[in-house]
């Protein structure tokens, strides 16, 4: 409804089946458990990285329903 009101959104997600129900217009898919979409508590660098990925997604996702999977894994360093 936010998109209908003219405001673009970017959504986080971690369960493809759930995202198929919700159909977010633009989304990033992470491999983290429920309740920690931005990774481990206190992992400032990773939280920041994922927000930067979201900004990039806003600029590059041009098709409704695009979902990009992020490579990050729990307590492993981010890929270069």
């Amino acid at each position, binding site marked *: 409804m936010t*998109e209908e009101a*003219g405001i673009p*959104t970017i959504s*986080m997600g971690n369960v493809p089946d759930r995202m198929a129900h919700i159909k977010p217009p633009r989304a990033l898919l992470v491999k983290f458990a429920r309740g920690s979409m931005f990774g481990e508590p206190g992992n*400032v660098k990773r*939280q*920041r990285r994922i927000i930067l990925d979201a900004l990039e997604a806003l600029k590059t*996702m041009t098709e409704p329903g695009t979902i990009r999977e992020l490579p990050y894994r729990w307590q492993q360093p981010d890929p270069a």
Partner: protein
Amino acid sequence: MTFDLEKFNPAYQRWVTESLPEFRAGRMAEIVKRYPFVVSDDMPWTPYKGQPSEQTFALVTSGGFFMKDSQPAFDTVSIHGDPSLREIPKTVSQGDIGIAHAQYDHSLAEKDINIIFPIHRMIELEEEKIIGRVVATNYSFSYVNDVVTLVTETIPKFISRIKADGVDVVLLVPV
């Protein structure tokens, strides 16, 4: 509107009636499997324009956050969930937040709210001028089954508020 209330409402009322005995017996996980999810046929879309460095961002989580000294907790007992919304100020600190949501493990968010509400990272990006501004008022929902109230009351208020606040982009973080 992409969400068909006329179709959903009777299905939802039927689900509530049929599920109440099991709900009272604590079998939420079972009854959720029969929840009348609505999958929209189309997808609303507003093209993104402009530059993040010149825009205002709002953060929305469904993690059940509330300001524990000034706001009521969400209802975690009702079969309907809680379709209301809490305003979380940009100045929030970890210690201000209570979490009321019975359907996920919030022990990690209790250590660091940024894992589902990365407000402090957003403020850092604002300070570095990577984004223009984080809006003064951000938002939390909690667990909701009563999508009718959500869609007819809560979300319209939310949208008029973020429009009045000049929000250009919303970052949505479900749990």
